[in-house]
């Protein structure tokens, strides 16, 4: 029976019947999980099995030829293998793991989960592999009495929530002949926003917003001040005089005096299904934020008053991500 097959078989057992190590420990942003010895499994790898076969052949040769030095070399390699098993175990035992953060993403992108691995040992740990159920992994070494952050970028295909779930921490150090592993359930969740649709103009503002629409058309932007240049700023807004005076790239900022408030309404979107419409809304939100507009969001059963800035964008995107969830 292959090692992988054993893993999955153990996983299928009802929790009560699982060996102790399978009653996973939990880690979260608040809770640190420590990989205790009893929860660490260790088994030979496929390469390990091949190596044992080689050792067995060497032993048979030594016996057959009654060759003392062949015995010595075979036994020495065998002993080294056994000691390497202890090293493998030691490389993983008492490792601390904690969630340090999770980043939301758009559908089709990757949700990033940051984990902090802490090594209290006086020895460096090598090649610690963290892997979630879908096979996304990251490898890290941790210096003695140090910690390191690893990031698991989990692909998110569907809008909603993305969870990291159970991860397997494993290591084959030092010789790759044994693999020690332990499971940790990481309580980590982040949002997956809808995939923004292709660029499309902002919706016409109707329903008592005609007034604002007019102001928008007039485009009576007033000069507001300067700020440092960001890539993507329109060249028309760059203060070329400042550049000529060697003050660097500075962008002129304009503010709409009467600050037209945009409303993005579920009913303004067109599309065959919910996801398309949400994608449309997502695109508008991003564009509006990009243009530093004030905007509000109207969804069936929920209204977010107009506001501006990063927080507003996140609030709105979160509503889109969780749209349709029965809460």
């Amino acid at each position: 029976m292959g090692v992988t097959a054993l893993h999955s078989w153990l996983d299928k057992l009802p929790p009560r019947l699982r060996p102790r190590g399978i009653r996973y420990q939990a880690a979260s942003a608040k809770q640190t999980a420590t990989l205790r010895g009893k929860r660490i499994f260790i088994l030979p790898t496929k390469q390990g099995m091949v190596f044992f076969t080689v050792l067995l052949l060497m032993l048979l040769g030594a016996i057959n030829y009654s060759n003392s030095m062949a015995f010595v070399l075979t036994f020495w390699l065998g002993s080294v293998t056994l000691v390497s098993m202890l090293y493998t175990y030691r490389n993983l035992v008492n490792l601390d793991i904690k969630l340090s953060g999770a980043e939301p993403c758009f559908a089709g992108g990757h949700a990033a989960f940051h984990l902090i691995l802490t090594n209290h040992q006086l020895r460096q740990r090598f090649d610690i592999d963290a892997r979630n159920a879908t096979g996304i992994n990251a490898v890290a070494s941790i210096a003695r009495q140090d910690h390191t952050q690893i990031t698991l970028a989990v692909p998110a295909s569907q809008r909603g929530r993305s969870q990291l779930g159970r991860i397997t921490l494993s290591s084959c150090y030092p010789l790759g002949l044994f693999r020690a592993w332990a499971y940790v359930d990481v309580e980590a969740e982040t949002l997956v926003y809808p995939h923004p649709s292709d660029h499309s103009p902002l919706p016409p503002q109707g329903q008592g917003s005609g007034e604002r629409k007019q102001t928008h058309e007039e485009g009576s932007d007033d000069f507001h001040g300067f700020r440092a240049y960001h890539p993507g700023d329109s060249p028309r807004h760059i203060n070329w005089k400042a550049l000529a005076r060697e003050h660097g790239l500075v962008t002129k900022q304009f503010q709409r005096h009467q600050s037209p408030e945009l409303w993005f309404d579920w009913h303004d979107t067109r599309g065959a299904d919910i996801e398309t419409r949400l994608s449309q809304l997502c695109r508008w939100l991003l564009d509006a934020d990009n243009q530093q507009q004030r905007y509000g969001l109207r969804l069936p059963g929920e209204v977010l008053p107009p506001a501006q800035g990063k927080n507003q964008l996140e609030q709105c995107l979160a509503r889109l991500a969780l749209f349709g969830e029965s809460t």
Partner: protein
Amino acid sequence: MNGPVITVLDQRAMTWLLAGLGLTILPHLINLPLWAAILAVGIGMWRWLATRRNWHLPNNTIKLLLTLGLLIAVFVNYGTLVGRESGTALLVLMMGLKLVELRQRRDVLVLMFMAYFILVTHFLYSQTIPLAAYVMLVAWLLISLHMHLTSLDQRPMRHSLRSAAGLMLLGLPLMLALFVLFPRAAGPIWGLPKDAYAGMTGLDDSMSPGAISHLSQSDAVAFRVKFDGPAPPPAKRYWRGPVLWSTDGRNWNPGPQLRQPDWQTPELAWHDNSIAYTVTLEPHNRNWLFVLDLPATASEHGRIGREYQLTSSKKVRQRLKYHMVSYTDYLTGELPEIERRLGLQLPQDSNPRTFELGQSLRQNARSEINIVEQALAMFREQPFVYSLSPPLLTSNDPSDQFLFESRTGFCEHYASSFTMLMRAAGIPARVVTGYQGGELNPVDDYYIVRQRDAHAWAEVWLAGQGWVRIDPTAAVAPERVERSINTSLLGAGEAVRFNVPHSELLAKAWQQLQLNLDAINNRWNQWVLGYGPKQQAEFLHNLGLDITDWRSLAWKFLLIIGGLFALITAFVLIPRQKQIDPVLKSYQRFCRKLARRGLLRGENETATDFAKRVKANRPELSEQVDRITALYSHLRYANKSSDKQLLQFKQRVIEFNP
């Protein structure tokens, strides 16, 4: 650390890998046929350049063709794929092929496994101390590479070398326990390849001119002897091997009767005290065991035949140790008819002049002893020369050519023509081959008998005396039996010179070194290489383990190994105490020394304040205290400090005596 994972072998890693694999196959290069050696080295160099220059690696078709080509080449070269030699060649070449397609770090493991296996095959050729040391060092390098190349962490090779050394050191006790306790079986479990024992030298059971002089060029040890009591004088140290009856005038063979089992071990009548000794025979892939002329007792390792020759039922393929008792003065009994017939047999129509000489000796002699004496006198008085490289005997009557024309020969020429002469004179005679002499190793007080001591002599049967050893070589070159030949000093074609003691100090020192080395080798052979079923039983018995009950022994074996592994586990897994900073440790010692004099450092007192207080109390210590405090502050708080300063600091604290 959490960067992109590098899986492709870079130039530096490849160089290390190739160096490791090169050292792995290095001792095999002389065993391999030239084409294979060149190919193996060539592939390695090509792979190195390919990494350096980013060459394309060959595609699957080329690799398949290469594999087939190599298989065929090895088969054509050796006629087989499974022998020792062909197997080794195949392994080395297949490792080369694996190297050709090596790209990823994970492929390295397969190469490593092959390299480990190749390492062990070296011991099928030789198990000397230098080779063993070399192989163990390469094993260390391979384990380091194994660790270095399979890890994704880009740490320096130095680190892997250190870790691998740690692994091996921790594994050492376990290895020793397994070596001592793992049950040893006698003999092979299954058949060995035919060439398994190729290259073992030793005496054959046939003798032709040049056979023994060929052996005489070899310094290889044939066997070592430890006498229980005082050793017999050199002239009596004849080590009996195969006895040869039948000849065609040139070659000698044991004759067909050797294998008749119904002959009883003959009774010996002896004159002097017995000589007991232990022989450690080097494997020579033949059945006979060498014993001091003549053996009295049979041994567990072989039986004594009619001709007082000790033969083993199995070919000697491992170092064999046997205890014997011999008598150097003896009387053999009556001569059976079959032996008389064999002992007088001469090839027809060959060597007519030898035959004539024998006939005339017979007519002129008063007694049989007189015939022998006359023949020996002829060798002594006429210009016979003892030479390691005598002229070839091309004639159809080689004995005639030797006795009457060339008169230059080695022991086999003398033994052969003398025996024929005796037969012609009507005295039953036979040729005995074996070794003569032996060099004392005073370091461990044993004798070394080398291949170059190989010898051939004659035995004649005289009424009232039985079989009597006659060494015609001794008549020509009496020194031969007193000293051994030193062939290393010998040029081709020169007459043999004998080992004359050198007066030079250097030569003596050299000889002493050689003897010391041989003593070490002997112990290595006896205790390490010769550790077989018998030695194991002895050793375990001495350890107080009951060796008769294998079941309890197996339990104890598991218990010992398990216990040892538990100890190693504890050593590896119990976390180390946090190391105290050596600077702080030394400073604390300084404080303790002052505390004994009543000067206690306060809880929150800085080193400088404490020093001030000490100086106020004990002005005579000012200088020392200042130095120590200054060094302490520097070592603790300065960014840069050298090991030399630390040493100096430690030293000052040690010397500080308030």
